[in-house]
């Protein structure tokens, strides 16, 4: 086990073959099925890819670091011949005829596609709880670290009912990497959807600069903010995958030409004395858990003690981010979802009174409440009479938010350091007490503004909370300074030595958990 680059070295040295590695991951996928991380497991595809990879290794024609490495892809990236659902009834049974550019790039490097991971429907959510295939369970719920802390707490309930959410919307990808069923996974990040579950699952969650990585084939949430995200166990792995994914794509006009050098290998920072770390004062909000607040300040101290300059900066328009995002996001959603009319692909209702009635019923049946709610709001904001008052104003605010960052970086700051989330992962039962909209508004608070500005950002696990759950901090860089950002993150990662998730018990117990679930379902039927 361990990092992608380590297992890659093992493959190169012949200590393990791609097929063995693939089978190991497939068996873990089966063992951890109850996590609900995967919507589709592409076992046959993966084994065939492993076989081909094995041939290449035997012939000394390995394609590189990713050859033979099991990966997973969020189920909102198009995969040729493999169902792509966006966790929605609307796309159940939809099999794209093409691969997303990022998927194709991974496959071209010999990666093994283990499957498609779970998410909130159309990536609208922050818990990975609102998909049609049910919620994703956080592997840390079953970790030794968390369980031992819970035993110490007399109030905690026993059993499985108190499992934690992964965060989202790329929760399936996070759970898949966290539970060792693959070595890297693609998420998507529109307002924090990669960084948020990374923080909750103890992973590195990287959102590249907008325009660095192709969105072609990513089923859009908000085109102007969506970025494919990378979830890995360490920063070097993320950098390696970024090196493969980055670059201009003729199929995506918003990608830029030659922004970074490839392959992307991060140097190890010897010292940070030339660095200036900015701490945005607006990110210190009352809702922030005291534990995360103190870890944040300890991280700042760590930089300072190692010689970096740490200064407080102001991002004055931060508080408008959520409402601004709401207008822009729902407007684009209303537009992007217009194509799902039941005519060409995906779900279609049985009503055939008229075309309009068919559209209406199809969309009512195909989308959940969250999606329908956003479509409704978005269409409202785009109405001729509202456009100036909402959409145009929100665009102006977006510009102000982006300028906040520009000003901070122009004042000499290299990288901003912030929390990723308000708290550690919460139990599902607690999470669903609030509705999706409230949750999204709360949970995206530290991550969303970055998408407005198109900046690169990465969540790095720093430590376990008192409850034994992972906590992440976020670094934000200048646009297209992704490499610099990851270099700083790598230094930080080395300093904090975040513990590995201990799932041994889970692996042993999971058969028991599975049995319990089976019994439960059987009794329900009776």
């Amino acid at each position, binding site marked *: 086990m361990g990092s992608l680059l380590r297992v890659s070295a093992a493959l190169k040295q012949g200590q393990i073959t791609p097929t063995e590695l693939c089978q190991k991951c497939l068996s873990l996928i089966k063992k951890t099925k109850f996590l609900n991380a995967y919507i589709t497991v592409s076992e046959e595809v993966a084994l065939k890819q492993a076989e081909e990879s094995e041939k290449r290794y035997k012939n000394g024609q390995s394609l590189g670091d990713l050859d033979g490495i099991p990966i997973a892809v969020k189920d909102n990236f198009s995969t040729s011949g493999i169902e792509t659902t966006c966790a929605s009834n609307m796309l159940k049974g939809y099999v794209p*005829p093409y691969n997303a550019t990022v998927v194709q790039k991974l496959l071209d490097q010999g990666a093994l596609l283990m499957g498609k991971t779970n998410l909130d429907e159309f990536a609208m959510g922050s818990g990975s709880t609102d998909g049609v295939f049910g919620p994703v369970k956080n592997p840390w719920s079953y970790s030794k670290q968390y369980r031992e802390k819970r035993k110490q707490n007399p109030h905690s309930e026993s059993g499985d009912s108190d499992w934690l959410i992964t965060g989202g919307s790329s929760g399936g990808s996070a759970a898949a990497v966290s539970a060792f069923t693959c070595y890297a996974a693609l998420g998507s990040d529109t307002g924090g959807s990669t960084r948020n579950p990374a923080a909750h699952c103890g992973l590195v969650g990287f959102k590249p600069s907008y325009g660095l990585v192709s969105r072609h084939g990513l089923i859009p949430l908000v085109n102007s903010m969506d970025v494919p995200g990378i979830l890995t166990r360490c920063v070097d792995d993320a950098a390696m995958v970024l090196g493969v994914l980055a670059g201009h794509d003729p199929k995506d006009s918003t990608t830029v030409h030659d922004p970074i050098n490839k392959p992307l290998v991060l140097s190890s920072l010897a010292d940070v004395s030339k660095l200036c770390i900015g701490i945005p004062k607006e990110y210190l909000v009352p809702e922030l858990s005291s534990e995360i607040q103190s870890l944040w300040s300890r991280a700042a101290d760590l930089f300072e003690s190692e010689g970096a300059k740490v200064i407080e900066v102001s991002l004055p328009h931060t508080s408008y981010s959520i409402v601004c995002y709401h207008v822009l996001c729902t407007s684009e959603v209303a537009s992007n979802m217009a194509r799902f009319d039941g005519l060409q692909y995906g779900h279609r209702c049985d009503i055939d009174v008229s075309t309009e009635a068919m559209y209406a019923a199809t969309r009512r049946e195909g989308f959940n409440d969250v999606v329908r709610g956003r479509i409704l709001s978005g269409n409202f904001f785009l109405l001729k009479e509202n456009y100036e008052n909402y959409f145009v104003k929100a665009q102006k605010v977006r510009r102000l938010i982006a300028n906040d960052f520009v000003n901070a970086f122009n004042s000499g700051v290299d990288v901003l350091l912030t929390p990723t989330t308000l708290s550690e992962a919460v139990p599902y039962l607690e999470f669903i007490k609030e509705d999706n909209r409230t949750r999204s508004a709360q949970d995206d608070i530290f991550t969303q503004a970055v998408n407005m500005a198109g900046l690169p950002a990465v969540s790095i696990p720093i430590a376990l909370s008192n409850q034994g759950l992972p906590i992440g901090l976020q670094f934000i860089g200048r646009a297209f300074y992704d490499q610099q950002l990851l270099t700083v993150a790598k230094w930080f990662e080395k300093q904090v030595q975040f513990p590995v998730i201990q799932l041994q018990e889970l692996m042993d117990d999971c058969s028991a958990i599975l049995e319990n679930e089976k019994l439960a379902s059987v009794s329900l039927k009776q």
Partner: protein
Amino acid sequence: MAAPMLRWGCRGRRWALAWVDGGSCHRRGAPTGSTSNRIRGQSSLAQQPLRTAQKPRKGEHKWAAVVGLEIHAQISSNSKLFSGSQVRFSAPPNSLVSFFDASLPGTLPVLNRRCVEAAVMTGLALNCHINKKSLFDRKHYFYADLPAGYQITQQRLPIAVNGSLTYGISAGKERGQVIPKTVRVKQIQLEQDSGKSLHDDLRSQTLVDLNRAGVGLLEVVLEPDLSCGEEAATAVRELQLILQALGTSQANMADYEIQRQISELENGGEILNETRSFHEKLGCTVSMRDKEAKQDYRFMPEPNLPPLLLYDATSLPTDADPQQVINIDQIREMLPELPSVTRERLVQQYGMLPEHSFTLLNEVGLLEFFQNVIKETRAEPKKVTSWVLNIFLGYLKQENLAVSESPVTPSALAELLDLLDSRTISSSAAKQAGVQWCDLSSLQPLPPGFKRSASQVFEELWKREGKTPGQIVSEKQLELMQDRGALEQFCYSVMKDHPQVVMDVKKGNPRAINKLIGLVRKATLNRADPAMIKEILEKQLSL
């Protein structure tokens, strides 16, 4: 529920093309004609302010029709506006559909360079200001042949603005005069075409063909400077000629389309500020918008396309990749001769009347035909003009043929004119025909006395038997009688057979000689030169 009628046959694609029921038969936006070039007219009655300072008294108002037009012309390009699919007419349904055209989720638009160049070129030809930065927008509406639920267009900042189009209106007694008029061009925008819906009323379902979906259109918006249907039709015709000269659009709108639009505009003249469109089946105009619900297109910037930036010689970055930038000045240099310039040149070079130059350009291929004849014949340009515009065009019109379908080639007509020129055949027929030349706009049937040698040759040529004029002349013995002795013999015989007429001539009746000439011509099957006959008769009668 009927089964889907059409499916994409490719293996592995489960997204099938589907039907929709025929519940809604009239649609939004432009009327869908059989061609891809559509015109939308907005006509209204406007009060012309006569004296702005005074409050007008009742009865002082002068009402004038105001016609504005939106013209959709399909861009001539190999591939679609935002995808690599081919653009081809009459291909099997749904055979030219990329994943983007079908709006598969996750696909993104990629702008076609050729379409941008066509728009810039058209903008320059219409004296527009070319915006160095233009933007794309989404225009939303649900319709079965609009698979994305929106059309990508340029609503906020189009590629070209503030131009003008000059056209000529026939006037004067014989409508032979051409008066120049100008209509302002508000803007030119790039946009996608939609697919095509085929309604099957029997089965109450609709079939969708997406071959046309995503094809690049130029929408040319004209300000309401046109005062009647005729002006509108003439302006549209001029625009069509310009687009064809530029090669930016085939602009192959059928005549009936223009005719249809004229009547639409004239009907529309009675309705205030209502956009109406022509309904093909009903044969009248219908309101384009639902009466119940006013369409709100919910325009929004297209987030997947960065602003379209154009450069000129001064703003072009030195390190720019020529494949990635468009230089307006370079396109300006590539502009071909525009119709107005061509017409001026024809008038000066060949001494033809302005209205003749209009006719030459208005018929597709006629100018080229004319120029090819000119190249190959010794005949005077004026004579060529007459023959091409009257006889040749007359034959075409009579049989409703296009120039390209003509059985007579430019070379054949050139040879015929050479024969005329060298007086090998009679020119009288051509002269008679000349009576009709002054009225070129209305094409008359051939004159009754025309069936003489030259026209006979022409008729023979028209039969597509593959013979040259020279061959026809010798086979049918149509050449002028050059043999004076033989002609003298004919004259002698005629005089002998008609002693009464000879007496009349001798008595001094001046018209009697013409009768004799006529009789001799008849006897020679019109192959004799009347001047020569007259001379011989006079000699024989010792007049």
